[in-house]
């Protein structure tokens, strides 16, 4: 077995040192009825050559973005990943290392995560960031739990225009904590501000808003924040397409208490869903209540600057059942990926990329708007995706587009908003050329005729 270096003479020597005749003696504490007589049925052992060939064939059974144009977003986006990102995350002492509990041997991870926290703080314009969460949904759920615990309230307002999957996760997390979720109605593709005004009351502990929302539309965060601030209700903004932070005023600019979401766009391919990268940034008053790991700067005994995991008393390994969150392992290597990505594109690159996404999506909007058989229900400022309705069944349109090497989402928004029959989100990034968009337009003209 090529991952096990022990020779038979090593084995013999070790057994002699232990004082046993055979290895089975070490397993005597396991009741014999539980010892397997047959190995688990997992098939014959394969060589590396056979495994790589098999998996290569398997991967080719998929229709990948190399085979077809991808117009899917919603929860993950296809952006270019500069070569350097993979190069750095392939460095063994980054990817094989454990959580940096021993700072003397972990300054590489610690400093990189400190940089990640710094970038996220400045991107969101908040006071602090943690070292990462699993994904955008668990980050939002943990933010809700954190804020409600701090405010000793049990009810959260949630925008009805959160992505349906995000909303589902919030319900899953809320139920066992006895948290009530009250949905804020929408109007013409964005949050209905008057309805929000009516819903805010002293019982409400926080309000969770996604922007760009599930239709891709940018919410009026200034207005929403002022409605909430007036009643001293904590505000949580969720940003799933983090590229939007390169072009749009960040929620921190409008005094949001928490900004959290998904940063998969920063240097990670969609990878059929994961891992992505959750993040959580907070205003000062929540710093000591944040879940997850936090890296801080300090000095060592020689007064050398260095980095450590800090504010550890919040965490589960110390607080156990009193901890506000159970998170242990997070997505550190993904945070490193994002840090390398953001370092490489820099301030100017991220702005340019965000603008490029905006322009490509708006070109697509302009081209599709005139296609017969397409209705665009909401025409408000959006970032890089928007909702379209077809005059034919969505499954039919999707299959027809697949025949033409184009991928659109499997999510029919009619499943979540019954009045939006045959509707789907189309997403456009820097990866979608004008030619691709023109082909999509022409294909839809033909299919919807």
């Amino acid at each position, binding site marked *: 077995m090529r*991952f096990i270096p022990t020779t038979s003479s090593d084995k013999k020597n070790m*057994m002699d040192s*232990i004082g*046993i005749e055979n*290895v089975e*003696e070490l397993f005597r504490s*396991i009741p014999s009825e539980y010892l397997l007589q047959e190995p688990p049925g*997992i098939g014959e*052992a394969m060589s590396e050559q056979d*495994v*790589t060939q098999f998996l290569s064939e398997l*991967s080719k059974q*998929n*229709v990948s973005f190399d085979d*077809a144009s991808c117009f899917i977003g919603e*929860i*993950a986006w296809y952006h270019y990943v500069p070569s350097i990102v993979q*190069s*750095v995350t392939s*460095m063994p*002492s*980054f990817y*094989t290392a*454990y*959580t940096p509990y*021993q700072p003397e041997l972990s300054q590489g991870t610690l400093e990189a995560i400190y940089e990640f926290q710094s970038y996220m703080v*400045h991107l969101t314009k908040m006071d*602090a*960031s943690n070292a990462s969460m699993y*994904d955008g*949904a*668990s980050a939002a759920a943990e933010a809700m739990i954190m804020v409600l615990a701090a405010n000793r309230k049990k009810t959260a307002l949630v925008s009805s225009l959160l992505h349906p999957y995000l909303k589902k996760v919030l319900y*899953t997390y809320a139920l066992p*904590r006895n948290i009530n979720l009250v949905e804020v109605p929408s109007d013409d593709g964005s949050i209905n501000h008057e309805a929000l005004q009516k819903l805010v009351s002293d019982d409400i502990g926080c309000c969770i808003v996604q922007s760009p929302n599930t239709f891709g539309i940018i919410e009026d965060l200034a207005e929403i924040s002022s409605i909430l601030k007036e009643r001293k209700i904590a505000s949580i903004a969720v940003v799933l397409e983090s590229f939007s932070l*390169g*072009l*749009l005023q960040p929620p921190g600019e409008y005094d949001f208490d928490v900004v959290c979401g998904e940063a998969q766009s920063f240097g990670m391919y*969609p*990878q*059929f*869903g994961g891992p992505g990268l959750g993040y959580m940034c907070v205003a000062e008053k929540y710093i000591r209540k944040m879940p997850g790991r936090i*890296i801080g700067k300090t000095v060592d*005994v020689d007064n050398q600057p*260095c980095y450590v995991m800090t504010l550890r008393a919040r965490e589960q390994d110390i607080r156990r059942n009193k901890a506000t969150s*159970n*998170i*242990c*392992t*997070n997505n*550190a290597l*993904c945070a490193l990926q994002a840090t390398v990505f953001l370092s490489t*594109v*820099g301030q100017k*690159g991220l702005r340019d990329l965000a603008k490029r996404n*905006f322009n490509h999506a708006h*070109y697509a909007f302009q081209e599709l708007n005139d296609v017969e058989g397409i209705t665009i229900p909401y025409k408000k*400022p959006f970032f890089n995706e928007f909702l379209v309705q077809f005059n034919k069944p969505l499954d039919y349109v999707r299959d027809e587009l697949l025949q033409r090497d184009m991928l659109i*989402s499997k999510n029919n928004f009619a499943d979540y908003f019954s009045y939006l029959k045959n509707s789907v989100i189309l997403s456009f990034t820097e990866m979608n050329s*004008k030619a691709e*968009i023109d082909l999509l337009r022409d294909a839809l003209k033909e299919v919807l005729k």
Partner: protein
Amino acid sequence: MKKNIELLYALSHEEKTGYKLPYTEITQDYVNESLPNDWVRKELFLPNVSEVEVARHFFNLSKLNYGVEDGMYPLGSCTMKYNPKMNEHVAQYDGFQKTHPLQADNTVSGNLFLLFDLEDMLCEITGMDAFTLSPAAGAHGEFTGILLIRKYFEDKGEADTRTIILIPESAHGTNPASAVAAGFDVEEIKSTATGEVDLDSLREKLSDKVAGIMLTNPNTTGMFESNIKEIAALLHENGSLLYYDGANLNAILGIARPGDMGFDIVHLNIHKTFSTPHGGGGPGAGPVGVKEHLISYLPEPIIGIEDDSIELPDMDIEEKLYRMNRMDKSIGRIRLTDSSFSVLVKAYAYILTLGEEHIHEVGENAVLNANYIKAMLKDFLYSPIALPCMHECVLSASKLENGITALDISKRLMDYGFHPPTNYFPLIIPEALMIEPTETETKEEMDRFITAMKTIVRESKENPALLKSAPTNTPIRRTNDTKAAKDLDIAYKRR
């Protein structure tokens, strides 16, 4: 080696960049006409640096880390085994990486086959009936598993009465934290001197309020719960469920299965047992396996639950169509996407490599190695448990002279080029040093570790200052953690 590496912010200059936009034929600028000016970002504080500076920065940072390739990484409970290069390679195939979680099922048949087959293999390995691959990490798996328990009792109309999860005092901190997150009260059960469940304490705590118990087996002292059969019987007679924390599954991989021992729910730590890298703290994956009676509560979506209509296909999978389904009584969705897919690809490659021939060698060698280290060190450090251990051994610094602690030993080990073991855990053993060599460690490296440990014990008597001032041979030395928390600096500020 460079010890202090400046942040990239310090190298920033507006003329520098590591990126150039690609060519596009869409040249119209829609921002002015389509976005209210108030909504356009005015300021963005990120560094501008060249690619070579990024490359050097992170390369130099990586040299300050200790990784599995640096040497023995005997962190108990963490299973720091070698991470095969092949795993990293296959996870990066374009056909995997460049697929979207919202693609229609008929365009991702390769992915769905892989996940379905992996579920099946995990069922075989653990003795469970079905798996969800969604949980993002061990603690996320625990949360999911306890939600399943909650749903199970809700379905039986006992949700209001079954409010307690029992947890041994030797358990990982995530166990009680996860049980509380899933809406339960936690009651601690006493442990015996070997860290096993104290049966009297268990009987005393059992009541019709108990929903279940969370057990790590082997437990956190590295001992197998020899009374597991009786524990399972007691719980099941009481109508309660058994939850298996898979953190220590490596010890019994291919040798015994939690499903056969009466566990109703199992979570696995893919990044421990199944060789995927720890990444400096993640990403991991924490699949959850269940027995038949809990399948209908699994989180959405689920692929290919045991069903006559789905047969395990051979290599020719084009004809098969896998479907993402939702179980009728599902606890709901637990994450944005469906799984940490690329982590699972690595685990799949690993299991294919082990195969039926080799899988038992993992547990055997992991246990042999741990017992070897224990045998060689038990006369030098206090060994609170005389019996053979499983995949990890717990020694204690409590009997050392001159006020030497487990922390001092750990720090001194760094000077000898080793990552220290887990210390101060499990909590039931004072000054604990928990050593897990894993099956991928060589005898030569373990012998060097043993020699280093013996030398350190001798130093603790002859020259304790060496330990108290350690480490001296690392990029930085002991840190001022009080200052870190007091003068909180957790993000670089614009100067």
